[in-house]
């Protein structure tokens, strides 16, 4: 690919900045406990982690494409791609993890008022506030528009009552962005509004949900007569669905790229197989079934990445097939789960304990990773919902009674 001189000089500039500012320890594959999440519970695993975070924050690289005025890096699409490529090439860890960064920020940039942008975006970039997402409810999962949490307007504030579930790490978060029902007289999707709620508000209570992984990455969050100022409404009153769709779009991209955020080399799984399985003199794994499935997984995983690159390139030349991005979440989450299943089989008896500490990619054990990654085909719209969307938008199949 030919790059212009400007891009070329930006690449050199970024490279030398990363060399100078990203400590060597921060170029190692990340493990979960060393991730830097923002907010009141922010802590640094090491001094290097703090240095790397502060350097990235001050350069605007926690949110490279956001405007400088809101604490971002002000980079173009092209420049952000170059930064991403250089960070991946060097193995630099993401300097900050936050749902505000990934999901709320892009929605505020598109739909927020100037006051909302100024209040929230810089705080997100600086890692001062950690956000949770309040979408699903016990009776509103895939059928998200069925949500019942109510916000009733009285004077200059709303009173919120109801409950949200699968609120990722709400117990560590400071604020939550929520979909709430402000009108139930019309069609389900039309009476929904998008609200920002301070989790320190009186009437909010949060209960972690123990998962099959043994961790509690998700919570249930309860709202009992919680008062929320009206200036915390994002977008139009009853017009929250449009904002939510923008957030979901970013969430699905995030889910699709979930693995690459902290990717170890592909050789990792082959190395694991070599350590744990019988190997023939030729170097072949003796277990023909695992060998064949491992080949299938690696082929498909490469193809998923090749498809992702093709989509990115088409996006650049503006000739993209709009249907292609829809496929990525469905395909990539399946492959991650397939990989985990193969890893568990490779580990044999050692793959049956949740407590073994072997420093896997994101989690403290590969078994926890396996259990947690079962969420990938559920969160952010289940695979079945993705297929519904592909059938309608990419293939043009007619709407049915049951979908």
């Amino acid at each position, binding site marked *: 690919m030919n790059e212009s001189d400007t891009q070329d000089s930006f690449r050199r500039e970024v490279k030398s900045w990363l060399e100078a500012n990203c400590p060597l320890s921060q170029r190692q594959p990340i493990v979960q406990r060393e991730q830097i999440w923002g907010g009141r519970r922010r802590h640094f695993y090491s001094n290097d982690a703090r240095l790397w975070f502060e350097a990235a924050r001050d350069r605007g690289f926690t949110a490279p494409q956001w405007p400088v005025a809101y604490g971002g890096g002000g980079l173009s699409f092209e420049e952000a791609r170059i930064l991403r490529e250089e960070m991946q090439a060097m193995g630099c860890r993401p300097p900050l993890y936050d749902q505000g960064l990934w999901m709320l920020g892009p929605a505020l940039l598109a739909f927020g008022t100037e006051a909302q942008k100024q209040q929230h975006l810089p705080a997100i970039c600086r890692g001062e506030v950690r956000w949770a997402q309040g979408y699903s409810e016990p009776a509103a999962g895939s059928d998200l528009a069925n949500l019942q949490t109510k916000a009733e307007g009285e004077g200059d504030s709303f009173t919120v009552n109801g409950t949200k579930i699968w609120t990722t790490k709400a117990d560590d978060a400071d604020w939550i962005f929520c979909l709430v029902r402000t009108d139930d007289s019309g069609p389900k999707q039309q009476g929904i509004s998008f609200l920002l709620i301070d989790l320190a508000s009186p009437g909010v209570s949060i209960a972690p949900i123990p998962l099959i992984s043994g961790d509690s990455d998700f919570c249930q969050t309860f709202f009992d007569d919680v008062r929320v100022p009206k200036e915390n409404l994002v977008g139009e009153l009853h017009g929250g669905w449009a904002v939510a769709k923008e957030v979901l779009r970013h969430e699905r991209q995030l889910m699709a790229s979930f693995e690459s955020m902290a990717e170890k080399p592909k050789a990792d799984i082959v190395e694991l*197989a070599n350590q744990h399985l019988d190997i023939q003199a030729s170097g072949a794994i003796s277990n023909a079934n695992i060998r064949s499935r*491992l*080949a299938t997984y690696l082929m498909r995983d490469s193809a998923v990445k090749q498809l992702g690159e093709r989509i990115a390139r088409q996006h650049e030349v503006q000739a993209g097939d709009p249907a292609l991005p829809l496929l990525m979440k469905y395909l990539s989450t399946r492959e991650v789960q397939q990989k985990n299943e193969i890893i568990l089989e490779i580990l044999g008896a050692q793959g049956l304990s949740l407590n073994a500490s072997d420093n896997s990619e994101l989690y403290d054990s590969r078994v926890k990773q396996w259990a947690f990654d079962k969420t990938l085909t559920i969160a952010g719209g289940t695979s079945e919902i993705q297929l519904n969307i592909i059938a309608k938008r990419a*293939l043009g*199949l007619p709407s049915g009674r049951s979908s």
Partner: protein
Amino acid sequence: MILTSEQELFRASLAGFLSQKLPLAALRTLRSLPLETAYDKGTWRQLAALGVTSMTVPATLGGAEFGWLGMGAVAQEMGRRLSATPLLSSVVLAQGALIQCASPAQIDRYLPALLNGDEVWTVAFEERAHFAPDCVLTTMTARGLKGGKCMVLDGAAADRVLISARKQSGDFGLFLVDAQAPGITQTPARLMDGRQYVTFEFADVPESSGQWLAGGSAERDWAQVLNNATVILAAEMLGSARELCERTVEYLKEREQFDAKIGSFQALQHRAAHMYTELELSQAAVDAALVSFDSGQGDQYALVSAAKALANDCFQLISDEAVQMHGGMGVTDELDIGLFLKRSRVCNRLLGDAHWHRLRYAERLGF
């Protein structure tokens, strides 16, 4: 597939030509012709004049240097219409072997007639029921070539044949011989997809009746030709699979049962959407292999095997689903769906089934 504007222009004009000259109806005609007929030679000459024989040939040899991505697009358009042409047998395999494995004098002598479509060749390289390119028992003895070959694509129409064999020294080589040379017995047959092949028996074919391709390392260079052919076949298969996927989705939008378009039923929507995701995933793998031929970068053996394995799985899935979703009509000869189904099984087996390529991929990656 992201083509250059020139490649895209060529693809579009070729698509127009094929729709006119080699639509699916032409395959229906072909399958009822005598066993010796492999394709329409007049149309092939016109295709050669359009440039399909010179796509990947260097300009120094009189080629168009249109690249492997361009060649992949040609194969894909042929796959869409199940066009019976010697693109794989004569161009990618035989002509490819000539360019890769022959001496400059041999190339000068034989290439022009292949490029302009006056001659068509094929390669006889299979000896077993399952793809095994390393199994070469056919041997040149002092009295001549002994052995046999099976599944020689378009063999009955070929003017000359390249035969993979052991030389008297024991080295691997490609022996170029006139298809009518003494000692060669041909048995023509037709595959279930309507395409033509022959089985050869060699009973002391005199070494003097032909010549060995005399380039560099025949074994390595022939492996490169097989890699190229495997990916072009995979591209053709995805052209067929894409056509089949589109036809099936159209049928789901038309067919009514229970007072509704059957395409409104979620059970069918999900299967159709899944087919489409598999198609795009496989396309990415095939494109990556084509790009690696053009750029010379990447582990080509791994990319080739990934492309063929994914194309096999994808074409198998989509052809099965297409028949099932067309219901009773899907198993009638009146509909074209069955032609694609039969072609899928032939293509899946040619140049290595999915299992063969998974094993080679594993070997390549060191497990």
